[in-house]
């Protein structure tokens, strides 16, 4: 009922992915992967989780670092913190929507700790990094007993606080494909407070424009906090695809997006308000993404 000191646990700090997988196999459901800890430790203080073993992956070098490759695009290690993403010129340039997201997450002192892998694996519906990653077509790379497998971030979530990362797997990194020319994404987050808050609604829009710089060649819209998991809004995408993106069309796409979400009424906002806000934020995110494309091609 109330927050307490941490419960006791056994601590393990493997130095390699293989070592971590070995420990996961050994302790099964009694173990939890411990990265940034900002969600896990709090859940433990509330006694919502009481793992007997914490597998601290922070010593695993393979899970760290941001790199860019002209063929494969961006590779972000699961242990990369929100603060590292925020301060990375590479992220700001190559994945501005992700940068939008990390800048408005939690607080600076939490962003230093929270990792992108943790944000995805915690799988809360309002996870801020999910919509931009989904919109950019990012993939999660998982390591397990049978080797590596790759899952679209879009397909990574099962339900509230439940991801498809199996208990014997760990998320090693995120791969964001190289973004085509004349494309960009944007993420907008609506909060009750101006900082230190969870998203009431989060919308990421990715657009790729045709050579005319007006017609929408490709589009992905991802919504956060309005369904049991972060979701795509395919109907809204269809509204835009192949058409010239005007404010009116963006508004129409917003209206469609508002009908596909299935939010709940909770302490933070009502269902109706959340749907309305999906409309507004979708419209704004699409327009923002387009204007980013136009600005970058002007240069």
């Amino acid at each position, binding site marked *: 009922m109330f*927050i307490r*000191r*941490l*419960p*006791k*646990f*056994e*601590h393990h700090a493997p130095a390699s992915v293989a070592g971590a997988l070995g420990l996961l196999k050994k302790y099964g459901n009694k173990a939890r992967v411990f990265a940034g*800890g*900002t969600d896990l*430790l*709090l859940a433990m*203080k509330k006694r919502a989780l009481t793992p007997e073993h*914490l597998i*601290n992956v*922070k010593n695993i070098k393979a899970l760290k670092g941001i790199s860019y490759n002209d063929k494969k695009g961006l590779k972000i290690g699961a242990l990369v913190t929100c*603060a590292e993403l925020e*301060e990375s010129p590479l992220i700001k340039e190559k994945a501005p929507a992700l940068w939008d997201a990390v800048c408005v997450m*939690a*607080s*600076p*002192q*939490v962003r*230093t*700790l929270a990792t992108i892998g943790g944000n995805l694996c915690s799988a809360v519906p309002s996870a801020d990094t999910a919509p931009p990653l989904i919109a950019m077509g990012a993939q999660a790379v998982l390591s397990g007993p049978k080797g590596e497998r790759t899952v679209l971030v879009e397909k990574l979530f099962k339900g509230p606080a439940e991801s498809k990362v199996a208990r014997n797997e760990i998320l090693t990194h995120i791969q964001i494909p190289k973004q085509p020319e004349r494309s960009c994404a944007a993420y907008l987050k609506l909060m009750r407070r*101006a*900082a*230190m808050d969870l998203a009431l609604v989060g919308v990421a829009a990715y657009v790729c424009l045709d050579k005319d710089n007006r017609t929408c060649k490709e589009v992905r819209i991802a919504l956060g906090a309005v369904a049991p998991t972060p979701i795509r809004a395919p109907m809204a995408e269809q509204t835009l695809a192949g058409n010239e993106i005007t404010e009116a069309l963006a508004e129409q796409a917003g209206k469609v997006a508002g009908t596909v979400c299935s939010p709940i009424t909770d302490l933070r906002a009502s269902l109706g308000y959340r749907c309305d806000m999906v409309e507004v934020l979708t419209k704004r995110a699409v327009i923002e993404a387009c204007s980013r494309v136009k600005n970058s091609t002007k240069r």
Partner: protein
Amino acid sequence: MRKVEITLRVNGEEYDLEIEPHRTLVEVLRETLGFTGTKKSCNEGECGACTVIMDGKPVASCLVLALDAHGKEILTIEGLAQGENLHPLQVAFVRQGGIQCGFCTPGMIMSAKALLEKNPKPTAMDVRKAISGNLCRCTGYQQIVDAVITAAQEIAK
């Protein structure tokens, strides 16, 4: 539970400790080492009172396992002044009304210190963003923002 041996470097001094794994950094700082300048209030990373600087970055020390601070440079409010000479941030907080009850002050100053490390010439908005994880109920934040900007100017001199 098996205890672990760690070395904490706090305010430039090394401490060899044997701790239980479930001890948070704020607990070890306050209860084991007696650095009670770092405050604890919500214990869930939502108030900023326990903010310290770890390897140059602000962290909520209630969300850090002490064993993860092993070998890292920790700076707490107690390590800011040089003898009797207060850090320019401390001077400005005192002079400009950035302090009232003082309970949020250590965390607030540490957040401000971390900001000035990476941005020596912050705007008022930069300061507000940097301290947005530190709740204060007394001051209304205005005089804290003013104090941080004054301190930045003082340091630049």
